[in-house]
């Protein structure tokens, strides 16, 4: 742990975690030490996302989205996006940082214009149930929204048209993911099932979804699903105290990430090369796992309560 060189390198890698203890922590990934703690006093952290330019960290929380400065040591938020009436549960960015999307329990998905912070040009999409998840297609114009009524909406931001899918009755959509190669879409629900669609694109390149596969990923709520950057692996996390990595070639189980008493596994994120994966769980730890061996490599301890959200930015 010599100063200097590594610190520079480490600046490019950002691991942020947050949860129910009202703090957000930044970690030095290889030593497991906490670099910085930010205070998120007003609410729990529902979701975390790092801006594409790695300058800001967005934390979705009750009625607000707070932005923290990653480049300074300011423990307090510097921007507060307000005006939503309930929990904001999802947050994300357009790849150039032009706008931010959010989804909340107030049944609305919103687009926040980030270019000039004074003039707002917002866009809103209302659905029937409280929103659980929002996912942006790599084409940057299709926003997928999943709600508690079990409906997946594809919202075309250019035309404002939308298309609905109901994979299963009486089940909540808990997360949606789209593979980086744009070939697959997946969603998980509160019954632990995982649904896979193949994505094709018609003449005017609008997205067409074809059901392809369905499997029982977990015994209880499946909470998150994420593809690896090379689209070869899919990780699902669950209330059954495990995270499972699946091969997207045939959706066979590749690795089960399990630890005694780790309780609910809320969030996960792959490293840029898909060799490692981070998980966040209710036992108050963020963990780093080796994807190949399934071994636990690091534990990040410091949170006093459940860790429910993590954001990670690797450097290629």
């Amino acid at each position, binding site marked *: *742990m010599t100063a200097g060189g*590594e610190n520079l*390198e*480490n600046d*490019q*890698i950002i691991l942020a975690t947050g949860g129910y*203890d009202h*703090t957000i922590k930044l970690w030095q*990934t290889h*030593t*497991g*030490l906490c670099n910085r*703690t930010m*205070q998120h*006093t007003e609410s729990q952290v529902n979701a975390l996302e790092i801006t594409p330019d790695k300058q800001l960290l967005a934390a979705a929380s009750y009625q607000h989205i707070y932005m923290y400065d990653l480049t300074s040591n300011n*423990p*307090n938020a*510097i*921007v*507060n*996006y*307000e*005006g939503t009436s309930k929990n904001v549960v999802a947050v994300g960015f357009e*790849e150039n940082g*032009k706008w931010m999307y959010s989804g909340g329990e107030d049944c609305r998905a919103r*687009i*926040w*214009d980030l270019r000039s*912070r004074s003039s*707002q*040009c*917002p*866009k*809103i999409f209302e659905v029937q149930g409280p929103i659980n998840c929002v996912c942006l297609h*790599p*084409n*940057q*114009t299709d926003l997928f929204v999943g709600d508690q009524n079990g409906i997946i909406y594809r919202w075309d*931001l*250019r035309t404002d048209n939308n298309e609905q899918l109901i994979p299963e009755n009486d089940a909540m959509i808990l997360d949606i993911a789209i593979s980086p*190669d*744009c070939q697959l879409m997946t969603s998980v629900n509160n019954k632990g099932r995982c649904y896979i669609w193949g994505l094709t694109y018609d003449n005017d*390149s609008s997205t067409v979804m074809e059901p392809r596969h369905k499997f029982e990923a977990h015994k209880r709520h499946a909470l998150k699903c994420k593809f690896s*950057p*090379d*689209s070869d692996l899919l990780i699902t996390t669950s209330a059954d105290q495990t995270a499972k990595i699946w091969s997207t070639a045939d959706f066979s189980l590749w690795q089960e990430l399990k630890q005694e008493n780790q309780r609910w596994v809320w969030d996960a994120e792959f*490293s*840029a*090369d898909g*060799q490692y994966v981070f998980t966040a769980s209710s036992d108050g730890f963020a963990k*780093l796992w080796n994807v190949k061996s399934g071994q636990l*490599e690091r*534990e990040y*301890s*410091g*949170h*006093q309560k459940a860790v429910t959200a993590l954001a990670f930015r*690797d*450097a*290629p």
Partner: protein
Amino acid sequence: MALYDNKYWLLSHIRNSFISTDDTGMCELVMVNEAKEIRQYLGNVESYPEPDDSEDEEDEFESYDLQMDMDFGIRERSNTAAQLEKLDLARKKAAKMKHIKWETSKEQPDINELFIKKDISQAVKKPERKSMLSVLMQNFSHLPMNPYIGYSKFDGCEQVNIPTRRYKIFLTMLSQQQRNYPINICCVATAKIQDLIGLTLLKFSTNHGDSNVNLKSVSNYGLFICEEDGEVDRDFPCLDPKECVAKFGFVCLGLVEHKENLKSVSFPDESQHTISEERMNRIRTISEKSKAEENRQKSDLMAMDEHNKRMEAPLYQSFRVFMLNKVRPKVEVNIGISGERIEIDPIQQKGSKLLAFKQRAVSHYMDTIAWCEITDTKSNKATFKLVYNSNFGTNYNSVDIGGIWKFLSPSSSFPPALQSSTSFKHYDFECDISTAQDIVQKIKLILEVRSSSSRKEYVAAREGKHYNKRKNILSLK
């Protein structure tokens, strides 16, 4: 505060301040239950006593749980003041924040500028390349992890809504120059002393990793009370590593490495040495040399241990045990044993309604103690008996240090000694086996050294009894 003229309140506040800042607990012991007497007294003196139910006084004068917040100093502010300050802070914080409110505008966003469809046909698989994380992990895989990393969860820095404690900790194992300044540690209030030690070592090793101090495992260190200038107060033992940090009010602490060879300052007795030597010789004849060496070390250690125990026996040590009584429920007490005396202090049970069963705090001079032995051992518990001479110089026998325990048990353990002859009484205690053995051994060693008349008498009486018994048996035959 300056305008406060309620005598009761002021008195109560002073008393509470005494109690809450006195870490020895003596103030509390002395002052407990005094409040009502004082009130009565004041009520009698004053010709026009204030009504009892004046609004701003606490009903209960005895709030011994009053927690002094070290950061704030004198007293907790009223809720309103605290609330106002909180609001003020929030406002200040908010002023530094940029607020962007959701507004619904009729203006349509410029779709072609904002939402540009990306050509995804080029979304090909990235070439296999190691990510920065993998590189880091590979580079650092051969390095050992910080052994104290597990203690990071007790870090109290910037925690929200969680009680924390701040300490200035002086690291005495550092070089003279470095140890002048303490490191500031903030830990969660639920941490134990050993967790605080671990956290301190973690902070030190991460922030001063370049210093050439060889850190050992947490159990090798102890935290001592210390002065503001870092001078460790060695008159007190180190804080119990298993206790919660919230129990201690000290802010300045010194981290001291336990020296294994601390005991080696004193050398074993000549006699013990020769005995072990002899034993060694015998062993050596039957076993290999190396094994003999090992055994020799072992027995040396044992001899040292024995010696140390003897040397340490008169040093003050306290144990937590249960006092047994035939008619009352068992009471948890502290037994403090030193070469001079044995003190039995009841541990105040919070919220206990059984006031009638409160045990008096008593103290016996060592010369009055006659015998101590283990009477019964069960699977995990042992009971032991402490025999004392109840009228060894009537007045100076049992000194009632509490003095104000109002609710004495109906069957007081101290009836006035009427007969002039020696009368032995005993206490029964219960605790785990190893503690019982420690206590009994300690007391026995002290008694051996002192060989008081009480003990001689007791032993003689006991032997007499034995003798009589044996005689009876013989005569029956």
